[in-house]
């Protein structure tokens, strides 16, 4: 039977605690969790029969719940959803082969939490304001053309669109710059994605020392008070889903 892997964690000399913890958590489809240990790190896994289990949203939530429960007690690396290995021996081989990389990543996330920040604006309202601003420049754009033809009209329309898009992007970058400068004071490791939808101007994840959690919330709260036109959604703490960089070959 295949084994499904949930996480790799630092177990050190806390084997008994880990065993007790695992006996109190149920894996997906009510399976028993077990650990395979090499030196000071362990893999947490359970049996998995793909014939019996339907992989759906509930399955994913169960999987995340196991990782969440483990993360409350141990520093861990969450494993990609649905990672299967054929036997305990295969898991052990992976532990030995990638021990140094696992350890390096575990040290990177030790005593840290992941937080997610989404910043929304009202695209229609904000872009309307920016469009008004760029309209005055648009009048100068017509001076670039001396001929009046279908081609030049098309180019003029395109130039107006590009100017609007550039102004919009510049404004978004300025906002993101303000947010990142404020949060950089807490030295988090971060990953930013901007304009993932017209309304989400920033979708970011942060890896931050646990003791800075309250300070981080206060910093976001301060940013919120400075930007009435933006909505902030801060969630966490999460296991470090976005900060593990290991590719198994």
């Amino acid at each position, binding site marked *: 039977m295949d084994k499904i892997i949930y996480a790799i964690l630092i177990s050190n000399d806390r084997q008994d605690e880990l065993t007790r913890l695992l006996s109190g958590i149920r894996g997906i489809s009510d399976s028993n969790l077990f650990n395979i240990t090499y030196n000071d790190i362990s893999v947490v896994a359970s049996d998995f029969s793909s014939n019996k289990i339907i992989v759906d949203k509930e399955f994913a939530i169960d999987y995340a719940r196991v990782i969440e429960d483990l993360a409350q007690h141990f520093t861990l690396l969450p494993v990609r959803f649905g990672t299967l290995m054929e036997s305990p021996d295969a898991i052990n081989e992976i532990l030995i082969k990638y021990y140094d990389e696992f350890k390096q990543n575990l040290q990177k996330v030790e005593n840290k939490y992941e937080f997610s920040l989404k910043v929304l604006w009202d695209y229609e309202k904000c872009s309307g304001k920016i469009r008004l601003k760029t309209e005055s420049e648009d009048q100068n*754009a017509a001076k*670039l053309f001396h*001929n009046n033809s279908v*081609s030049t009209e*098309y180019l003029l329309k395109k130039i107006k669109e590009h100017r609007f898009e550039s102004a919009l992007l510049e404004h978004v970058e300025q906002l993101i710059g303000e947010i990142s400068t404020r949060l950089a004071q807490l030295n988090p490791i971060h990953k930013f994605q901007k304009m993932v*939808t017209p*309304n989400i101007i920033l979708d970011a994840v942060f890896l931050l020392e646990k003791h800075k959690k309250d300070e981080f919330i206060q910093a976001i709260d301060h940013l919120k008070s400075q930007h009435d036109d*933006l909505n*902030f*959604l801060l969630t966490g703490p999460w296991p470090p889903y976005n900060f593990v960089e290991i590719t198994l070959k």
Partner: protein
Amino acid sequence: MSEDKILLNSGPIDDFVGEIEKLESSATSRVNATPDNADSGLAKLVLTLIELIRKLVEKQAMRRVEGGSLTDDEIEKLGETLMKLEAKMEELKEIFKLTDEDLNINLGPLGNLM
């Protein structure tokens, strides 16, 4: 996501949920080629790449026009070429029943293609 995971929320939660659902639906609309739809899956991938290149060409052309380095004749030709490229792209999208949203890709730190 359970409510105890929300540390701070300054807007209506429904707005965030709506936007996150949009993100999820765009993630699931990625190229999904199967033996039955290999043609359209491949067309989507190829047209997305063509659209990316077309947009880059268009941006570069706008810079040159605004830079004032082109003659009236060159501007005329450039406008006509870009117009024809866009029309051809629309034609291809119609043939393969694709929308602008289908061809949109997230370029990471650069934002969305469209």
